[in-house]
């Protein structure tokens, strides 16, 4: 803020100057009042002229410098020029930064599309042109889901909330796979990222096919070997010395077959891309059957209890659920000592359906838990061989549950026992079954 005193002094000095000139003029003319009035009028007109020149310059701006003015007006003109220069400098810098930003996003190998809250395209970079088939200079302001019309992608674009991604096979060019990701930012805006993942998808397919084919091809000779071993094992003419090795060979060939079966079922789970819709599965009935089967196992704890607290079932694939649940139950039975107990429980609540298998066996050390569902992961190599597991059981459980939008929760205290729980979302629950 300027000081009032200075302003008053400034005005007083100017007024005195004009008045003095007026008085002098008045003395010459003989009329002091008229002299002062004329002097005032001239001073005012002069100010107006200066103001007009400055305004004219500001409006048209033909020259860089303001017109030659006197007094305060020249100061105002200089200040305007200074302001203008500073603004131009900042603008140039901003433009340079912006250009650099655009160039660097264009250089990204991934397609980037900026969308507003109505999913209209605001901006996109060069790779988005080729990956998504957008056209520069034409597609701004068009809704993205009008151009990416493949039903899968549309549903992803419309339904996506938060940070989500989708791997999709392009319908027009079935060789191509895209990874799409939607990232929200700013006020309702979204960033759509697209990446060509054809190569990784192809590698995954090759690997999957190899595992499936190899397992399948290995099974045929194994069946023949197992058949002969069985005949020999029961043949009374075989010398006693060979009995032991023969039965061991038979056990190992059985194990190998179990391994191949597990590999095949994993490959099958991998191969089906989509989530399964499925029909209602009567979970209580399935669990009763599994409990009966578990009681037939050769090595099992004394008690296997089942408590069914809900009559509801699950929408899904019965065979997949059977193999998932069976793997969990078999594991628990295998690792729990003969005097232990295994509890099976099925219940539903506001979060969905839950199936848990609790045992009071030796438990699992916490460092192993995150890696349990990896293929061939062994907590203890020697024990695994002793119990005859394939190392694939929990991987199958995880995949089968994933297909049902469910997840596996593992809790364990060494020495206390373990608890494996499957959580199914509410949307997967089906109504109570007939009984």
């Amino acid at each position, binding site marked *: 803020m300027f000081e009032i005193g200075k302003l008053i002094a400034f005005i007083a000095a100017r007024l005195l100057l004009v008045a003095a000139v007026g008085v002098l003029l008045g003395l010459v003319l003989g009329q002091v009042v008229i002299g002062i009035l004329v002097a005032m009028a001239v001073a005012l007109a002069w100010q107006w002229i200066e103001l007009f020149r400055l305004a004219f310059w500001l409006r048209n701006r033909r020259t860089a410098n303001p017109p030659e003015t006197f007094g305060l007006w020249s100061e105002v003109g200089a200040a305007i020029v200074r302001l203008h220069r500073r603004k131009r400098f900042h603008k140039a810098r901003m433009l340079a930064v912006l250009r650099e930003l655009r160039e660097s996003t264009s250089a990204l190998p991934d397609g980037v599309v900026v969308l507003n809250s109505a999913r209209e395209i605001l901006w996109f970079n060069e790779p988005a042109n080729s990956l998504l*088939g957008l*056209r520069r200079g*034409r*597609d701004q*302001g*068009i*809704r993205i*889901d*009008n*151009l990416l*019309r*493949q*039903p899968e992608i*549309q549903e992803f674009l419309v339904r996506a909330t938060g940070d989500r991604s989708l791997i999709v096979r392009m*319908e*027009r060019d*079935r060789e191509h796979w895209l990874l799409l990701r939607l990232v929200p930012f700013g006020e309702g805006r979204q960033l759509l990222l697209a990446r060509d993942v054809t190569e990784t998808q192809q590698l995954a397919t090759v690997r999957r096919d190899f595992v499936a084919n190899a397992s399948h091809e290995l099974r045929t000779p194994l069946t023949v070997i197992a058949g002969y071993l069985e005949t020999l094992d029961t043949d009374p003419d075989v010398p006693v010395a060979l009995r032991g090795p023969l039965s061991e060979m038979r056990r190992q060939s059985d194990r190998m077959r179990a391994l191949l079966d597990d590999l095949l079922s994993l490959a099958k789970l991998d191969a089906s891309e989509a989530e399964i819709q499925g029909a209602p599965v009567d979970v209580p009935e399935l669990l009763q059957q599994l409990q009966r089967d578990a009681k037939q196992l050769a090595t099992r704890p004394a008690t296997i209890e089942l408590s069914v607290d809900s009559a509801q079932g699950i929408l899904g694939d019965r065979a997949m659920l059977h193999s998932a649940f069976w793997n969990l139950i078999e594991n628990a039975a295998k690792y729990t000592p003969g005097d232990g107990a295994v509890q099976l429980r099925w219940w539903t609540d506001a979060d969905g359906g839950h199936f848990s298998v609790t045992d009071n066996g030796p438990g699992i050390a916490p460092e192993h838990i995150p890696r349990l569902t990896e293929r061939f992961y062994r907590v203890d190599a020697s024990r695994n061989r002793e119990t005859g597991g394939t190392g694939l059981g929990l991987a199958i459980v995880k995949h089968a549950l994933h297909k049902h939008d469910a997840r596996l929760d593992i809790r364990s205290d060494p020495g206390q026992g373990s608890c494996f729980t499957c959580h199914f979302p509410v949307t997967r629950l089906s109504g109570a079954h007939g009984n």
Partner: protein
Amino acid sequence: MDTANLGQHISRRFNEDLEHLRSQVLSMGGFVEQQLSQAVTALVEGDSALGESVARNDFQVNAMEVAIDEECQRILATRAPAAGDLRVVLAVIKSITDLERVGDECEKIGYIGSRLAAQERPADKYRELKHLGRVVQDLLHAALDSYARLDAEAAVRIAQQDRAVDEEYEAIQRQCITFMMEDPRTIRRALDTLLIARALERIGDHAKNLCEYVIYMVHGKDVRHTRLEDIESELLGKSAR
């Protein structure tokens, strides 16, 4: 010519309604495109399950047509649109009929494809049909793109490509006739091939119709049954001015 021109409306809601209508048509178009792609894949790869699923899913196309038709009626009754807006609604009503027919042709291809999958596949693995299918898919995709962009110039260009489809169809027809004359045992398969080629050719015609509706929406000109050269000279002359 862009979406902003579709209406400077006092009523924002009306604008949104029209945009939503166009989006619905394009969603339907996307689904039909998928049906076409899957039908051709089912045929070429001999995947009878895929062919059957295409034939089974046609009801969804019909359901979409009915839903959009009702929406159009609602807009006509409640908003009484005029000029460009009226053209949009009218074009939508016509487009969904064409899209629904494309869906029917896809159903046909899927059905025949799943039947052919059970038989021994010919030595050329339906190479010609695969190629024609590719051309028609591109045509339909480009037509729907011009629909989304309201790009009349592209629409004119795409409509011209329909001729390539017709020529392809003629070639397949001649080939089938030759096969049938050489060896009467191939008649049944040749007839099926012809039916599919015919269906694909019809889809090309429907794609061309979609392009004509785009021109109608943008320029207000009914260019049906007009020679393409005339359309081009008129529209491009207009835009050059």
